[in-house]
């Protein structure tokens, strides 16, 4: 996991999420493995967000620390970089924090995805827009020109066209932009109903900020990644109101043992409440302050849970056996359901939820089964937001 360097923030949350689950299982005496309780140990190293370190550390985890399974480092580039190592040693690696479709199209056997891939990020948002307002006609897409964001944007574009929407502006911007005014002026001229920004962190904040300045209003504004952390609201205050974002998971999302029973699938792991409780403890111990888990954390937790479930079913730590069990598996955790697509080894039972910032809170608005609030539509205008109005 990178806990310093360019992926420091995301890497840190992922690590804490994984630790929370490991602590949870060990507090319960360990994992049931063929009738015997086995304690789980998470060994982690800081790859500094650098390829060469990610590789050598992964190798040493396998050869020196003799780990049985791997969690991928955060970031598609790092995840791809370490894949050949997992493949060579036949060690199961669960990809967390990397969603590029292309990772799973390379023909790696031991590389497994537990969450939706990048091209599907904006599907739920677009489905929602169409469902809430059948009159939606036009979509504008801005995207950060990088591997992951390009996938998100392309996926959004194809899906929008499938829904019969017209993409009126489709513009890239550089990976570390200093000024998005030029791109935003283009959006202003095209005036789309729905505006999608396939962003990362800093650029997402910048996009909102400069849209507000140029008063580029749309009925729905959705960003990837950026709106999912509290810093988004801290940085933008009221301007963040009504902004929508797709998320792998949110604390209010309730996949529960009851729901599992209703659907007739097996439940595995902690409940969302338990996870949040353990995560807070980890964040206090390692980060000095108690924070709510976000989707990076839950994603990593899901990764650990998938491995543990496989081990529990196989009653063995052999990667090939665990992998074949996972191929057959159908279970639910607090994160989502789990079912692997045999062609790509990606969990296809997971779909993104959509959140919206409402009155300083991140609320889940889609899909309706797990939603905790209704989508505010159309979004407030920038003038209204600047005047202090909030989405309610």
């Amino acid at each position, binding site marked *: 996991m990178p806990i310093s360097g360019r992926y420091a923030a995301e890497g840190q949350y992922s690590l804490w999420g994984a630790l929370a689950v490991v602590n949870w299982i060990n507090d319960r005496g360990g994992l049931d493995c063929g009738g015997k309780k086995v304690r789980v140990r998470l060994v982690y190293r800081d790859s500094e967000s650098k390829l060469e370190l990610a590789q*050598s550390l992964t190798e040493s985890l396998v050869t020196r620390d003799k780990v049985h399974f791997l969690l991928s480092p955060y970031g598609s580039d790092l995840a791809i970089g370490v894949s050949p190592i997992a493949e060579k040693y036949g060690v199961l690696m669960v990809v967390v924090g990397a969603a590029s479709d292309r990772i799973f199209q390379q023909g790696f056997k031991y590389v497994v995805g537990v969450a939706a891939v990048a091209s599907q990020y904006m599907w739920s948002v677009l489905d929602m827009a169409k469902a809430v307002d059948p009159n939606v006609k036009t979509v504008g897409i801005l995207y950060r020109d990088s591997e992951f964001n390009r996938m998100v944007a392309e996926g959004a574009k194809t899906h929008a066209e499938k829904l019969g929407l017209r993409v009126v502006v489709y513009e890239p911007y550089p990976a570390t932009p200093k000024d998005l005014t030029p791109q935003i002026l283009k959006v202003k001229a095209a005036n789309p109903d729905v505006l999608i920004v396939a962003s990362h962190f800093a650029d997402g904040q910048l996009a909102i900020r400069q849209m507000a300045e140029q008063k580029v209003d749309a009925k729905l504004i959705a960003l990837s990644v950026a709106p999912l952390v509290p810093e988004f609201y801290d940085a933008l205050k009221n301007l963040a109101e009504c902004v929508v974002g797709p998320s792998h998971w949110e604390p209010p999302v309730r996949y529960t043992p009851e729901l599992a029973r209703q659907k007739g699938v097996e439940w595995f792991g902690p409940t969302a409440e338990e996870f949040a409780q353990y995560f807070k403890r980890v964040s206090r111990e390692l980060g000095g302050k108690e924070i709510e888990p976000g989707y990076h954390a839950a994603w990593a937790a899901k990764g650990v849970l998938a491995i543990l479930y496989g081990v529990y079913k196989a009653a063995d730590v052999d990667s090939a056996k665990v992998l074949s069990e996972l191929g057959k598996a159908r279970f639910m955790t607090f994160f989502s359901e789990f079912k692997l697509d045999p062609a790509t080894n990606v969990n296809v039972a997971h779909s993104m939820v959509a959140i919206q910032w409402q009155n300083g809170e991140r609320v889940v608005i889609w899909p309706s089964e797990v939603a905790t609030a209704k989508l505010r539509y159309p979004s407030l205008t920038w003038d209204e937001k600047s005047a202090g109005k909030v989405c309610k």
Partner: protein
Amino acid sequence: MKPWLPLVTYLSLAAVAFFMPEYSKTIATIVFFMALGQAVNIFVGLTGYVDFGYVAFMAMGAYGLGVVLYYMPQLGFAALPLGLALGVLMSILLAAVVGGVALRLRGAYFAIATIGVNEGVKHLIIGANIWGGGAGLILGSRAFEAFGRDTALWLANVGSAVLVIATGFMAVVAMYLIQVSKAGYALAAIRQDEDAAKVMGINPTKYKLLAFMTSASLAGLLGAAYYPLGNLQVFPENVFFIEYILDGLAVMFIGGAGTVTGPIVGGALYIIVRTVVGELLPGYQVFVTALVLMTTVILLPRGIVGTLRLHLPPKLREWLP
């Protein structure tokens, strides 16, 4: 000078990587920094010029192999030598163009011009959407197609490590050949006083260009061995990542600029500090490494090997080039 110590070091590292493949990536990482320092040294250490755009040569190497593998996996195993050759060729060409034009500039102006080249090429590749543009090239399935699954995995793990080590080895040989030839005398004169060198009958541009192109070809090979082969990917944001030249300079300086053994010592120390701190105090390794680098540069401006050489009797100095 006697180049045996550094050559034997590389050979034994290669032997370990080959016969103990479970350490190949670890070795590859350490040697990556050694070889980077070594390649940088041939130009920076011998001429005294700083090239901040040096990464562009690694990028050319990476794209050379990456492009062949991505667009022509049907070539099978021939894709590897062809890709490596293309990568090295592109690096040398870029060096010839940049060097031929920009080596007229002195000191910091040259350094800044080369940043311009690196960023310019990067922005062109992304901006004009060449070779995958901003999304880069991912080569996993192509490598499986070209080499077959097992060979591809062996190449990605052990093969790239061996090639990285070979690059370091060749860099030592190149350094040796330069230093015992006329070019060595010319470069020593240019480094110390370029104007005086001219008056002594030395054509500075010719020898600087020689060092520049040699260094660039090694960097290209390193880039090809590393990104497309070892990591099965070429992402512009990574291969043009300017900090690698700074890493290379750091390795060279900790060891001793202009020395042959220096980058080996520097590279080993650079990674060992990171690894040890990373295990004891995760998250603090870059901080500590930077601190080590700063103190070394200020307190031992000649680097470890450079300082050691100063205090060695001439007979032993021969053995620690």
